[in-house]
């Protein structure tokens, strides 16, 4: 590959990783529609899911402008080997404590990532990041309030949020799994890298968790910290392909249908 091709491939890889994360967690969060524990949360999760799908679409649109197929084709015709989302977003929604903790950990990382990307040398991505970060601020505000409220409310809510955190934390580290293009992205000023992102994320997450009467899990164990790796290279959990099948069930009947 020439330098130019290598650069384009690196940017596309970053866009796919981000867009696929947004698409999958957006679909997962939309599963709360009609089932939220209270009306406000039902609406909030549905609304945030809609934002995520909008962000996914905007990222796929940038890929389209770089010569890839259009957003619908990218979202609905690839099989799991060609998806680059992290494992964390693939897990079923489970109980609300799990979904809420995932929302907190994922959206905090997403907010920091877009914030870093406002300075990206990839101009379309920098422009999108400037737009999206105001929207995500609402998501992290929502998450922080609930983590704090439930962390401090009752013994039961505290125990359940701590259990959710212990389970989610090692999975969340999969967000920061590096791709083969990490150096290229950093050297060309596209993205300052997963390591810096993870460092800022850990600081912010720790602050919110500790203020909420919860404890950060101790995971110095290398096996645990790479437990959820593989997604960025196309290796996924058993949950992704069934989700993709469900998402594309109608589309697959007639991909050329006009709506």
């Amino acid at each position: 590959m020439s330098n130019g091709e290598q650069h384009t491939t690196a940017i596309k890889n970053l866009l796919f990783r981000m867009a696929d994360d947004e698409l999958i967690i957006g679909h997962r969060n939309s599963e709360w529609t009609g089932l939220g524990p209270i009306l406000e949360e039902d609406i909030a999760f549905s609304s945030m899911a809609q934002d995520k799908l909008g962000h996914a679409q905007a990222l796929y649109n940038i890929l389209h402008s770089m010569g890839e197929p259009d957003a619908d084709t990218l979202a609905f015709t690839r099989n799991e080997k060609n998806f680059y989302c992290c494992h964390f977003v693939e897990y079923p929604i489970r109980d609300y404590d799990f979904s809420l903790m995932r929302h907190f950990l994922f959206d905090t990382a997403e907010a920091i990532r877009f914030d870093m990307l406002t300075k990206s040398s990839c101009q379309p991505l920098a422009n999108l990041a400037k737009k999206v970060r105001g929207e995500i601020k609402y998501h992290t505000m929502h998450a922080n309030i609930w983590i704090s409220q439930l962390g401090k409310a009752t013994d039961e809510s505290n125990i359940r949020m701590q259990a959710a955190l212990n389970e989610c934390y090692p999975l969340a580290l999969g967000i920061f799994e590096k791709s083969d293009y990490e150096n290229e992205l950093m050297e060309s000023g596209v993205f300052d890298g997963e390591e810096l992102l993870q460092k800022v994320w850990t600081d912010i997450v720790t602050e919110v968790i500790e203020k909420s009467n919860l404890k950060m899990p101790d995971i110095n164990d290398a096996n645990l910290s790479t437990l959820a790796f593989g997604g960025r290279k196309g290796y996924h959990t058993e949950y992704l392909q069934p989700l993709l099948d469900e998402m594309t069930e109608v589309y697959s009947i007639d991909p050329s249908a006009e709506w």
Partner: protein
Amino acid sequence: MDTIENVTKDDVISLLQEVKDPEIPRVSVVELGMITGIEISSDNKVEVRMTPTFAGCPAVEILKSEIKNKVLELPVEDVEVKVDYDIQWSTDMITEEGRRHLKESGFALPAHLNNELISIDLLTNVECPFCGSKKTRLRNPFGPTLCRAIHYCDACSQAFEQFKPV
């Protein structure tokens, strides 16, 4: 040869005042600050650039076709509507007229952000559009559409919607 009167940007803008937000039919796309550019070529082809309010706003495609059809009412050769991400929409871009129409539609107005990100302070004690009291509470930053938040007024005991600052 017949004289063709050249279409001006002002003609396009005043016509686009008739294209309303499908979810808030008193407010036009111009008043919302969504129109970011109009170019008219010498051969009377018009390019309109618009920026979406929220990235996930489902009304974008509808608005694109409504804008196109509306401008085609003018004597122009062709119209192209482009979605513009170079300019990022903010509630600060809503015009004074737009804010007045939002208020008349029963919405609490978004605080001015002046390029800052939203904070919880800007969402508390929002003025109630029904009674004017500021004894209000944010109930949910997420409302019936992406651009609305739900508040509750302790003075007149009514829930109300705010066009949320972004």
